[in-house]
């Protein structure tokens, strides 16, 4: 009854006792997969330790892992770390939220209405290539030297990319879903709210996850000028005294917080959009 369905050809498969880890696109045991993720950093850490232990480089250029850990401990016990982290997290959250609150509606509108895409896309695409660091003087002029300036920088670093990505998330949904909504008699605004938004939401959530990562990377830039506290500030201050252990600790710590944020978004996305998982 069918002309174009091909039966899969019988390829004689010989089961190899040991599966190769370097097969193209082949699944490997998940234990090996996750272990591999630890092995590489561990190797790096080991060579770092070895290089400093054997005295190949001066501590000024590369302090030992122990020194970095000690520096972390010092900051923690003196209370600096918590103070820095809380102010920085506050700035990140507010800056990212502000960007998101504006980017979501704009991205959704751009994704649904060609006229809005036409009028905003060229502008946003241009602005997003402008270096945010260059905007520091202007941001100070506009918002002073308080928290607002840092938040503005984080906003600028996040917003433009984010709105374009959300536009794409919205555009990527299946046109037939919209058509199905039309044939079922739903109005445009109902289709937008009840079909387009839920259909695009896993993609939008993923955009959130990616963009908050970018907000983290802008932290040092945001705290470059006129800040007395913050994880980024601490790094810039350390530069003055050539305190490389402080610099390294601060950098790694920001990376760690970024990783944690990523994880939180990934996990919450999985439970928010359980319907989106492939598992049978």
């Amino acid at each position, binding site marked *: *009854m069918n002309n174009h369905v091909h039966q899969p050809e019988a390829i004689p498969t010989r089961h190899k006792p040991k599966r190769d880890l370097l097969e193209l696109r082949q699944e490997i045991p998940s234990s090996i997969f996750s272990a591999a993720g630890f092995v590489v950093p561990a190797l790096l850490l080991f060579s770092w330790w070895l290089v400093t232990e054997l005295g190949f480089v001066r501590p000024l250029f590369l302090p030992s892992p122990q020194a970095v850990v000690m520096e972390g401990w010092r900051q923690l016990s003196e209370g600096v770390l918590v103070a820095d982290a809380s102010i920085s997290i506050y700035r990140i959250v507010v800056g990212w939220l502000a960007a998101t609150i504006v980017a979501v509606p704009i991205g959704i509108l751009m994704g649904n209405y060609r006229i809005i895409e036409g009028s905003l896309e060229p502008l946003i695409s241009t602005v997003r290539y402008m270096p945010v660091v260059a905007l520091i003087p202007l941001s100070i002029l506009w918002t002073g030297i308080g928290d607002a300036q840092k938040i503005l920088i984080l906003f600028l670093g996040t917003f433009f990319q984010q709105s374009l990505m959300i536009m794409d998330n919205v555009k990527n949904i299946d046109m037939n879903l919209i058509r*199905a909504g039309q*044939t079922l*008699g739903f109005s445009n605004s109902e289709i937008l709210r009840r079909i387009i938004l839920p259909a695009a939401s896993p993609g939008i959530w993923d955009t959130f996850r990616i963009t908050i990562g970018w907000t983290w990377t802008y932290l040092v830039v945001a705290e470059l000028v006129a800040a007395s506290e913050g994880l980024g500030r601490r790094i810039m201050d350390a530069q003055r005294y050539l305190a490389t252990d402080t610099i390294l600790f601060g950098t790694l710590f920001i990376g760690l917080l970024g990783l944690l944020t990523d994880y939180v978004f990934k996990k919450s996305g999985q439970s928010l959009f359980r319907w989106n998982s492939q598992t049978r």
Partner: protein
Amino acid sequence: MNQTLIKPKVAIDSVGKTFRVNAMPLVAIERIDINIRENEFVSIVGTSGCGKSTLLNMVGGLDEPTSGEIRIDGVPVAGPGRNRGFVFQSYSLFEWMTVQTNIRFALEKSTMAKAEKTELVAHFIQAVGLSGFENAYPRQLSGGMRQRVAIARALVYKPSILLMDEPFGALDAQTRGMMQELLLKVWEDHKVTVLFVTHDVDEAIFLADRVIVLASRPGRVKKDMDIKLGRPRSFDIVTDAAFTAYKREIFADIREETLRVMAMERA
């Protein structure tokens, strides 16, 4: 062939459709005239790009003809409406809704009482053989099962016309056969007029009262053929002499068309 005296259910009256592609006109459909009777099952076949989807979309009100008119029960089509149900080739289900809520969503605009809706949803879940999967999400279903949800969703609000655009195109041969039988059964139980677009000539003949072959570049009707095979049909009819004769004729038409298009492309 179809000069029925009764008013046609669907009248496709000198319909043409021209798209603009990069400011150049592209004649997708030149001129098509088809009258479809109430409860008729019509299959539409033709080479790729001959305008089958375009035609179906226009009947569905998702697209507008550039010339001519489509009337349903004598009323010109002016957009999508709940007298028509649509089943697309891609499983266009609402993935964030369960099987049950997907189907129920289609009833949201009806004025029925809640209990009646619940009953209707349950009835259609059963009719398409998805009992036990009410609370599954589309991602958890196989292709055939998803398309059964789509069929139930398109029928639950009792449209009088069902438009199907290659609904089984992505299914394997076995599943496809099962779906065809299921569709015929549902069609016999809930009388609706069906416009069924397919690439598969066997499928077209097996299902339909009438097969329309479209010619391409630009699209127009090449053949309009009544299928006089008894109903209910079972799968063994595909080996009947009558079935094979229809098949041979339609294949010849499609082959001729394909060759003509290939020659045009070479020129």
